[in-house]
């Protein structure tokens, strides 16, 4: 039995202690000085997807603390400033405008492709109209390919692998999963979910023509509380595997309903690791039959990444859901240090084509053609952790095991982007 309420207080005390101890232990001289360079974090911090937004914010706070402790960017501190977009497109633009009014010229956002497109278009227009006051948009999680294809912008940079790259990874992995004969697609009813659905249908057909797509469902984003009716439909279809791009509570609740019905199938997911997901997956009791694709997972043997993960968990009590966030912020810091400037115009120029050692090891680069960050990808499965695996998720005793790695060269996708680069 756990004590939830007192734990919160204890947690606060622990945070205080760790922060205090960390402060004492740090070599004071390398601590960054001067006025901070602020980055606006525009994501849902209330409402259905607040859990995801909150975890992301904690991730970024810790990432920046680490960068600042090592001297910051060009000797200056980086600071994340949260803006709540309430998972609403109009509010997203209002908040971006508010951030700009507050004097912030670096925006980061990730949750919700439709909002990402709105920001990218807004920032691009804003920069045309306000030369000398440019704003740069760092996208850590909105993965619709359109952002680096038809609607690409010089001012938009994406660190997450896009839907096409992720689906290619999943379907390539499925080639060797001969138990999969019938696949059911269930996704959220908006641009991202539609993208996942269409790409899954196309790529499964290319790579495993023997697989039959037995169902193709979309449901409203962040509105369904009980997925039991959907699970009944999946069951009735005779599917032996599901492909879903669902994230946040839409994933956790979906899997929870599957657990209740005793649905024994494989799951191929984009975001199973999100807040609430691991708890639901443990309840579904499908050891190593739920897979996720991503640029990194907690149990990858990599000393520096493991130390980082451990420190984050000790301080904020959340897992590193965004290893790409580390890449993003370290590259931002590098761009600022290289150019000795916090001017987004200089930053964008430095990021364009920048090479970088990614968080879990290996080379990555920000492709100059479309501003899509290219990096190795992993497939991981979720199950009881083994003796040599240090990290479980959400205190379930279950964690991620790497099931496959996709090298950078195999993640490259074509782009239709014709970017207007300022001279």
């Amino acid at each position, binding site marked *: 039995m756990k004590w939830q309420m007192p734990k919160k207080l204890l947690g606060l005390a622990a945070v205080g202690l760790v922060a205090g101890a960390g402060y004492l232990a740090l070599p004071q001289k390398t601590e960054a000085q001067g006025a901070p360079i602020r980055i606006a974090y525009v994501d849902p911090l209330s409402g259905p997807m607040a859990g995801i937004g909150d975890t992301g914010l904690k991730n970024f706070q810790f990432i920046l603390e680490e960068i600042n402790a090592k001297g910051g960017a060009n000797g200056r501190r980086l600071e994340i400033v949260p803006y709540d977009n309430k998972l609403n497109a109009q509010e997203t633009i209002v908040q971006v405008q508010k951030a700009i009014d507050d004097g912030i010229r670096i925006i980061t956002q990730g949750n919700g492709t439709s909002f990402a497109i709105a920001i990218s278009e807004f920032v691009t227009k804003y920069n045309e109209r306000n030369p000398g006051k440019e704003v740069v948009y760092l996208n850590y999680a909105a993965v619709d390919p359109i952002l680096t294809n038809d609607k690409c912008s010089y001012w938009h940079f994406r660190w997450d692998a896009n839907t096409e790259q992720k689906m290619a990874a999943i379907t390539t992995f499925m080639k060797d999963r001969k138990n999969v004969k019938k696949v059911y697609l269930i996704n959220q009813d908006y641009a991202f979910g539609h993208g996942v659905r269409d790409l899954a249908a196309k790529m499964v057909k290319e790579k495993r023509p023997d697989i039959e797509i037995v169902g193709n469902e979309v*449901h409203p984003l962040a509105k369904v509380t009980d997925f039991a009716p959907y699970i009944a*439909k999946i069951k009735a279809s005779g599917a032996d595997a599901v492909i879903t791009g669902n994230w946040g509570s839409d994933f956790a609740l979906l899997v929870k309903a599957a657990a209740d019905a005793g649905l024994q199938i494989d799951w191929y997911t984009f975001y199973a690791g999100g807040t609430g997901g691991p708890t639901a997956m443990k*309840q579904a009791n499908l050891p190593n039959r739920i897979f996720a694709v991503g640029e990194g997972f907690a149990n990858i043997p990599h000393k520096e990444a493991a130390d980082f993960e451990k420190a984050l968990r000790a301080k904020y009590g959340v897992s590193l859901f965004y290893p790409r966030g580390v890449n993003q912020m370290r590259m931002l810091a590098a761009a600022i240090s290289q150019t000795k400037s916090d001017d987004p115009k200089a930053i964008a120029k430095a990021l364009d084509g920048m090479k970088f050692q990614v968080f879990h090891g290996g080379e990555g680069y920000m492709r100059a053609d479309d501003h899509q960050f290219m990096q190795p990808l992993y497939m991981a499965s979720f199950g009881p952790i083994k003796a040599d695996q240090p990290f479980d998720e*959400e205190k379930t005793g279950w964690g991620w095991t790497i099931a496959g790695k996709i090298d950078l060269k195999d993640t490259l996708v074509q782009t239709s982007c014709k970017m207007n680069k300022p001279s």
Partner: protein
Amino acid sequence: MAELIIISTLNGVLYGMLLFLMASGLTLIFSMMGVLNFAHASFYMLGAFLGFQISQWAGFIPAIILAPLIAGGLGALVERYGLRTVHKHGHVAELLFTFGLAFIIEEVIQMIWGKLAMDYRVPSFLDFSAFTIYATNYPAYKAFMLVFSIAIFIGLIFLLTRTRAGLIIQASLTHPNMVGMLGHNVPRVFMLVFGLGTSLAAIAGAIAGAAFVTQSNMAALLGPILFVVVVVGGLGSLWGAFVASLLIGLLQTFAIASDWSLSKFFGSYLSPTRGTILFDIWTVTIAQIGPILPYLLLVLVLIFRPTGLFGTRDT
């Protein structure tokens, strides 16, 4: 197909019964105040969080008994020290009061428990499958929820129609002055009805929280549908709330199970060009529009039968 129909019926009835647990309290409170309690779904959420917390300390059975009692007690306090004072200033003030209360409850819950999902689990003694239909398990916990909510429904009907307390409540709802003249303490009856209503919502929360996800957005997700239930059923009508709950539960569940779209009916004769708005309408399945069907029903009921299915007063 038979499997899907049976499972969908079970799911629909269960969802409907949970809706009823909440809607019954809401509709009782409406009969009393003449105002929709916007904070009603918040008491559902409060019930879930209290249920979670108490189950951590004392186990599941005490949780589903104590959580509704505490939430009901808080509800009674809200009526006694909040609503009763606000009542003087009319319905709009009461409405705004409950509206504000909903935000306060949500904020307080977030302050105490945070914004993340709680690890509220089905108790181990109910964590098995009760029976298997074809190849789908029906969890014992869901069967428990179903039986439990039906038992409460019967108990509530019995309380309101067969006991002296019930008679006084019914009389107070319609003829408060007369009941007062007869020497009953009407304000106290109102307080108790409010407490009862909120504790019914809390019961629903305490048992549903373990089955679904206990999170600080539960109220926002479920709130709007409750209003649909009480309006469709007829404001103030308990039977109406019952029928409307089941109707909406089944409607939503079967809509999801259905893959029909316009293109399936007419697909071989005509089809709009792909990529146009018309094509989207043409191919959208009933499953996709399932979640808005209750609201469509709401609009239709308000147009064609503003009193609701069983309602007596105008909405």
